[in-house]
């Protein structure tokens, strides 16, 4: 602990980035050893927002625990709910109606766009450009409005539940989503003009925070972080769930492995999500939005694991059931936690400015890491 406060025995400066710091987007604390501006060592200190969701879930029923998970990765709360619902359905062996499946996928993809929008703005802000934040929020607001109409909430939606979805879609849903798609497509070029094409931005991003494909796998990186290094890791493609295997979309892969590659993955992923939304929005099948399930769910004895692709990568939900109404043990394999573990290696030997660029493209959500 003493080493964290002053200088190391070699005379390097030790500096705390966080727990309250503009670049960490939450309460992440990085203890960095610096030689001037060059980073010698980075050490993440976690736990500032640890709520022990796993312990909490052990005393919540299978219907209740889904809602706690919205608070993990609050930017992709639909996907968290989705993963939990899928694992419960896997245990119960419930077949959910097609309509519910399509609604779930639509919501997931809308959330993914919203999450990437926020990431885009926040990352540009990390690099010192404030304006993109407001431009991205212009589009994100429309998504949250759509969510609010259907789910009743703007951030922690709690809409997807075991058996289907909580309520049917709002009558205006289709119209408003179509409006959003038109708006997004007409504004998307601004993103590239304002940030992607900027020479300063490219210089800041290219060759920074390099992560090789082997390391990406070894560190368990998933999502855009792994895909930026050319590792195929899209759960929607590899282990399709719901209706993803019937949809036409590409897994965005970049081979650069640097921050710019990760940036481009996310930018292009937004377009792919829009593509999915366009395919589904006119083809929402009629029918029930929820399967008939018992009021009190009981999972059979055994272990169940389900992976879903959130906006940050692979979320794994591991449930050990003893046959009761509550899970015996539950483990969330959160994408942010594994992605963070690669950070110390990625930033070693680079400047403080690069740390911000690298951390921005990792898209860390701290409650997701701490759980």
């Amino acid at each position, binding site marked *: *602990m003493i080493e964290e406060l002053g200088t190391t025995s070699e005379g390097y400066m030790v500096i705390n980035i966080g727990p309250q710091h503009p670049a960490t987007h939450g309460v992440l604390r990085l203890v960095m050893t610096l030689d001037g501006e060059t980073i010698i060592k980075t050490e*993440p200190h*976690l*736990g500032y927002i*640890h709520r*022990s969701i*796993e*312990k909490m879930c052990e*005393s*919540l029923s299978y219907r209740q625990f889904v809602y706690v998970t919205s608070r993990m990765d609050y930017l992709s709360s639909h996907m968290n709910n989705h993963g939990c619902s899928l694992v419960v359905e*896997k245990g119960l062996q419930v077949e959910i109606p097609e309509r519910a499946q399509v609604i779930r996928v639509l919501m997931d993809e809308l959330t993914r766009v919203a999450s990437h929008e926020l990431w885009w703005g926040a990352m540009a802000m990390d690099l010192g450009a404030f304006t993109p934040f407001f431009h991205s929020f212009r589009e994100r607001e429309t998504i949250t409005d759509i969510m609010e109409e259907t789910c009743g909430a703007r951030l922690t939606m709690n809409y997807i539940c075991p058996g289907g979805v909580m309520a049917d879609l709002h009558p205006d849903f289709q119209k408003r989503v179509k409006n959003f798609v038109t708006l997004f497509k007409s504004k998307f070029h601004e993103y590239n003009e304002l940030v992607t094409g900027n020479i300063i931005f490219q210089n800041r991003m290219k060759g920074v925070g390099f992560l090789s494909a082997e*390391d990406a*796998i*070894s*560190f*368990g990186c*998933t999502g855009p972080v792994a895909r930026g290094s050319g*590792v*195929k*890791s899209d759960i929607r493609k*590899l282990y399709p769930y719901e209706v993803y295997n019937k949809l036409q979309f590409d897994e965005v892969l970049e081979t650069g492995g640097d921050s710019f590659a990760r940036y481009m993955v996310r930018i292009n992923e937004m377009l792919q999500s829009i593509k999915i939304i366009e395919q589904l929005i006119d083809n929402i099948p009629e029918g029930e939005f929820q399967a008939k399930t018992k009021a009190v769910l009981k999972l059979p004895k*055994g*272990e*169940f*694991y389900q*992976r879903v692709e959130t906006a940050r990568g*692979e979320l*794994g939900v*591991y449930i*050990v059931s003893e046959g009761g109404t509550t899970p*015996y*043990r539950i*483990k969330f*394999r959160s994408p942010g*936690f*594994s992605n*963070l*573990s*690669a950070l110390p*290696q990625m930033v070693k030997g680079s400047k403080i400015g690069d740390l911000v660029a690298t951390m921005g493209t990792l898209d860390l959500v701290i409650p997701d890491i*701490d759980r």
Partner: protein
Amino acid sequence: MNNEDLKNKITELFPTATFEEGGEWVNFFIEPTEWKKAAGVLHNAEGLQLDYLFCLTCVDWKTHLSMVYHLSSSLHRHNIVVKIKLDRLNPEIETVCDIWKTAELHEREVYDLFGVNFLNHPDLRRLFLTDDFVGYPLRKDFEDPINMIKL
């Protein structure tokens, strides 16, 4: 490789392994003393190449602890689950963070919340909780009368 082939392969590599039926993936138990060697084999063996450790956790069974390693291959796309029973009073196991780098933080998390001692881990400290915290919260017998809310 499908589950049947995986099973055969694993029996061939580790004769002592005992399988657990019923799961989605191949589940097998292995002795803690063999784990380090087995991990290297699983990572490198031809046809297995389980280079992606996507979930590392522990379950407290009240009589013993069991480590659960979910492994996947980025090449062949098959998954297996390795389980290791540990003594509850003195849980000790070799670290695998030199084989799968992601294990470093995950093992620290398990150490923090379950008290499993990972031998040869480069930096085994509490991760989420403070250094002076007493007890291991995710164990079933953990009680914190002040902060814990029983539902």
